[in-house]
């Protein structure tokens, strides 16, 4: 049986055909509906650009004068008072999932590489192993230390540019660090007191080989993926929900997740409790995006992910500290931020789009 015959058979099963309904738009019922809809409040004008404090210069500032969290809170009120007021983080993320599913997969051909570039900064905390013994300490991930980090440690924000070339038979990672900046005068004072250890230790630039590109081991079934990420997030000493959203972000950036996997990741994010819709924002590179955020009540930090609602691409992320954080920094101080360029195919592990 031909495809046409088959299609005709199925077409015949329809209760009604569109041809039978032509002209229905002019019916009284349809015109009544049209009147009701266009009488509904018009959507709001485009949201204002982010508060100046939220669009900090890309390079590090030691002490933001205005809390980003406060700015974001104001922004959220502005955005969500429009006709999108009913929209929630969950709805925005489900929408992103739908968009992600429709995106073409970026698959490198023979001799091709997926080029991924990110630019941002992250904190590096150096802790003196034993005070007074002259040990210069080692870089450590920040909030894992018991008690206050203000006694024998100093923290710097290290700007980084990461470039990855992913290929079928391997690739290359190149990370270029910029000049570290102290997050506070106290950090600088403790560094001076420790004998001014070489900051280059925490801001090394390097290049490294990457293994061949293989499929990401993530389920594209949202239920299974949720269970997988929930299991992975448990027991890490961080808030479960915020850790799950962090894992979602990890899988969306610098990976070769398929459209189905990306859709599942956004669907999972939509189900994570405690995710707030920040609203429509402009990232540091001036790109329009939609942001969601979650607080980690354990570590007193807030993670914000910004994605492009048109493509579902992860555009940016940011982590700020909340009141009562282990660093002792003012609420809103940024400890991580990054922007991600859209991945592109290139023809060599040195080429850039």
């Amino acid at each position, binding site marked *: *049986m031909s*495809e046409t015959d*088959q*299609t*005709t*058979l*199925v*077409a*015949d*099963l*329809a*209760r*009604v*055909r*569109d041809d*039978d*309904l*032509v*002209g*229905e*738009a*002019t019916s009284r*019922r*349809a015109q009544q*509906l*049209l009147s009701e*809809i*266009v009488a*509904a409040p*018009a*959507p709001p004008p485009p949201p204002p650009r982010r508060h100046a404090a939220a669009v900090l210069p890309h390079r590090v500032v030691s002490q933001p004068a205005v809390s980003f969290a406060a700015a974001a809170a104001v922004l959220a009120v502005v955005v969500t008072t429009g*006709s*999108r007021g009913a929209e929630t983080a969950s709805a925005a993320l489900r929408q992103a999932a*739908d*968009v992600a*599913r*429709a*995106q*073409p*997969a970026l698959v490198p051909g023979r001799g091709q590489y997926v080029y991924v570039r990110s630019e941002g900064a992250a904190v590096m905390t150096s802790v003196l192993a034993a005070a007074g013994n002259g040990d210069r300490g080692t870089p450590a991930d920040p909030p894992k230390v018991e008690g206050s980090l203000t006694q024998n440690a100093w923290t710097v924000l290290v700007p980084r540019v990461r470039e990855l070339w992913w290929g079928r038979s391997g690739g290359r990672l190149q990370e270029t660090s910029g000049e570290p900046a102290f997050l506070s005068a106290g950090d600088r004072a403790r560094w001076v007191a420790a004998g001014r250890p070489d900051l280059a230790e925490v801001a090394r630039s390097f290049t490294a080989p990457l293994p061949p590109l293989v499929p990401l081991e993530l389920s594209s079934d949202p239920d299974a993926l949720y269970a997988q990420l929930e299991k992975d997030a448990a027991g890490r000493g961080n808030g479960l929900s915020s850790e799950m959203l962090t894992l979602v972000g990890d899988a969306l950036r610098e990976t070769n997740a398929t*459209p*189905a996997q990306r*859709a599942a990741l956004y669907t999972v994010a939509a189900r994570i409790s405690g995710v707030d819709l920040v609203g429509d924002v402009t990232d540091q590179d001036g790109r329009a995006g939609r942001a969601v955020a979650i607080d980690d009540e354990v570590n007193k930090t807030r993670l914000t992910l910004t994605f492009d609602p048109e493509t579902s691409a992860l555009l940016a992320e940011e982590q700020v500290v909340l009141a009562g954080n282990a660093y002792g920094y003012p609420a809103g101080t940024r400890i991580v931020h990054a922007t991600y360029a859209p991945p592109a195919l290139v023809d060599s592990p040195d080429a850039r789009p």
Partner: protein
Amino acid sequence: MTVSSPVDDRRERFTAIYEANYHRILGYALRRTSRDNTADVVAETFLVAWRRLDDVPEGDLARLWLYATARRILANHRRAEQRRERLASAAIALADAAAAPALVDVEPNRAAVAFERLSSGERKLLALVAWEELGAAELATVLGCSRGAARIRLHRARRRFAQELARLGKPLKRRGIAGHVTDAGTPAGLLELEDT
């Protein structure tokens, strides 16, 4: 000189989209849900379009955008219905069973039975092609998947449909006026596609 305001432009564009597609979305909903739900699905679909008019693409793509929106709304309705159904008591289920239409008098249409034997996903694909007359590329847009994936899924659905038809083996019998299957001649639930 008359200068139209942005609000007027907006209404004009929405009205054009509405009038060009109302019957299509009405048909889409009628073919997939009860008449009671149809009005809600149509209204919600166009309300979303009005609120997100800037997101509605130009030209014929608007039709696909509306189908995709209607599909999501229908899926939400189904989930809500399923939740309600799960909460229903056994007594209600028994009452429903007693009230269900008797099918013994209905001679099954071979195509209808074969269609019913497909998975909901397969039925959904074939219906979009046959009822909404979508091509593979349009199918991909509405379903939110790649064109390649849409083609493969459609191919599988066609193959399964052909297998089920072959399994039934009897000559085809078309029913209804102008080739349409009437409600009475359709096995219960056949056209209630689970559009999730």
